[in-house]
């Protein structure tokens, strides 16, 4: 469904009683010939490094608009805050650009999010694509009621397409399917720690550490009635435990419809500091008093099997004996 932009959406937003009554605005899906922008609002990246992404997207029939932040570098960042914000703002405001892919994550979007003006974007929303540090953006946009795409970014496109592994080809192609309006449908192998059940709701989520860092701000993630997915990388188990306590203690787990645990690349405990709980223990103890389905090992995260997910759009998760299915409704 392609929703048109309802007049006075802000009023609709603030008066809505529950997320169910909120109609997420879905940007226009892409067709060959459309223009996609590439910008680097967080970490720095060179033009050379995004070449494979450019070639791949050109092969889909897209025209690429390479932003000024590509190739810029200010230490770890893709330019100064001002440069990154200016580039991102141009991408948001340029009506001919129909989608914006963030070139990579790293750290830095939160430094510029409050400097961005979303007025033009809200009048004419477009797809924004990214993950990891860009979880800030997905959460921020979901509070505006705009759908966005959580997926791999330019730095994950294989250098040599002809020699790429099938999983790389498939995950990259899932971005194109998401952008062109395919109804997404994914499967995850059964994990015996899963909590079975079926649930519907808007899909939201992203990087767990980043979600924690948004608490209390206007970009804070609202989870009631939704399907929440989380992933993280390079964190100690104790830190993951603390982050799930954060979700719980800030009320983000109590009213979920379903919980999807993606990849967690766990940093090994230091010798003598072995943590008492596994990832499964950590998650399941936080949700034991709730009754929604929970699935582990979903193919999203800092890993090869990181498929494109449409944030803000209603999905159904079916966690069944043998197989988990996530499908867009």
């Amino acid at each position: 469904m392609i929703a048109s932009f309802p007049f006075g959406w802000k009023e609709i937003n603030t008066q809505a009683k529950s997320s169910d009554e909120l109609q997420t605005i879905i940007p226009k899906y892409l067709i060959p010939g459309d223009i996609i922008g590439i910008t680097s609002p967080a970490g720095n990246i060179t033009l050379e490094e995004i070449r494979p992404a450019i070639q791949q997207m050109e092969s889909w029939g897209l025209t690429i608009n390479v932003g000024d932040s590509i190739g810029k570098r200010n230490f770890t960042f893709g330019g100064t805050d001002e440069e990154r914000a200016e580039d991102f703002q141009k991408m948001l405001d340029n009506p001919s650009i129909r989608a914006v892919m963030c070139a990579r994550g790293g750290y830095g979007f939160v430094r510029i999010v409050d400097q961005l003006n979303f007025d033009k974007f809200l009048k004419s929303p477009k797809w924004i694509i990214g993950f990891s540090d860009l979880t800030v953006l997905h959460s921020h946009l979901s509070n505006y009621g705009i759908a966005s795409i959580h997926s791999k970014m330019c730095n994950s496109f294989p250098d040599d397409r002809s020699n790429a592994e099938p999983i790389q080809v498939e995950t990259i192609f899932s971005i194109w399917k998401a952008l062109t309006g395919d109804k997404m449908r994914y499967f995850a192998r059964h994990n015996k720690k899963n909590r079975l059940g079926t649930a519907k709701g808007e899909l939201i989520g992203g990087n767990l550490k980043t979600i924690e860092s948004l608490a209390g701000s206007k970009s804070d993630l609202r989870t009631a009635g939704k399907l929440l997915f989380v992933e993280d990388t390079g964190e100690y188990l104790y830190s993951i435990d603390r982050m799930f306590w954060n979700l719980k203690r800030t009320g983000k787990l109590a009213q979920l419809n379903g919980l999807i645990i993606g990849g967690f690349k766990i940093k090994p405990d230091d010798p003598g500091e072995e943590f008492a709980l596994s990832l499964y223990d950590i998650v399941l103890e936080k949700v034991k008093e709730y009754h929604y389905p929970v699935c582990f090992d979903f193919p999203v995260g800092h890993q090869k099997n990181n498929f494109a997910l449409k944030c803000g759009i209603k999905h159904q998760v079916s966690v069944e004996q043998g197989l988990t299915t996530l499908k867009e409704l």
Partner: protein
Amino acid sequence: MQKTPRYLKPGDTIGITCPAGYMAAEKAQTCIDTLHQWGYTTKVGKTLGGSSENYFSGTDEERLDELQQMMDDNDLQAILFGRGGYGLGRIIDQINFRKFVKKPKWLIGFSDITILHAHIYSNHNIATIHSPMAAAFNDGGSENKYVLSLKDVLEGKKICYQCNSHDLNKRGEAIGELVGGNLTLLAHIVGASSDIKTKGRILFLEDTGEYLYNIDRMLFQLKRSKKLNKLAGLIIGGFTDMKDTERRFGKTVYEIIHDIVKDADYPVCFDFPVSHEQQNYALKIGAVYKLDVRKDCVTLEE
């Protein structure tokens, strides 16, 4: 109105428990001996040097039970936490504060204990002590002025700390209730029931072992959740053992903090002796202090 537990007098008893990470009993021995020399008796819980074989000093139930018993025990006038680490947040919502609120006692510690300080300040308005814990007494530590500052605070002496000025300091004078502790924990509790109000207060922050980008992100969280805009004053303690990414952040940790509060209209001081290192004065959270950031020195006075 802020409640202040009764100050200690010789013969009073201090409970020692580990509500978070594991600590071997011998590592707390100097601390216990020193507390005896100061004229106190101690009651040592089983979580110190317990039988736990993992990260924690005991199971959640064991740690909670012991903490609860000590908080409710009328024979104890203070509880000194053996160490921090991680774990108080796992049990904090199960603590029953009813008896403690009726008859408060001093709770002493820092780092992971920040969550308890904040929780008690926000929900019960009882003063607590942010200070060195048991390990700080070792290797001659019991003689240093930072550990000795705990003795003064416990005895009810009005404290006045001084430290050197720092190039990034913003001069000025502030009076307000002192709140704060470990930045990671303070960011972690934003939006939860333990969250602190900072308006009109003097906030102090310290941290250790974090990546610079993460310090930046946590400060942005405090800023974006409006914790930094109406402070009376800001005290930046030690940010020790900072880590950087392969692509360098490009600023020192104090420059990162300075950039975020440089337009603030309140006094700010850097490198105040509150940290994970030896430099760690005892501070009463919830008590009213005067912070005076001058050209040549910084004074924090109760």
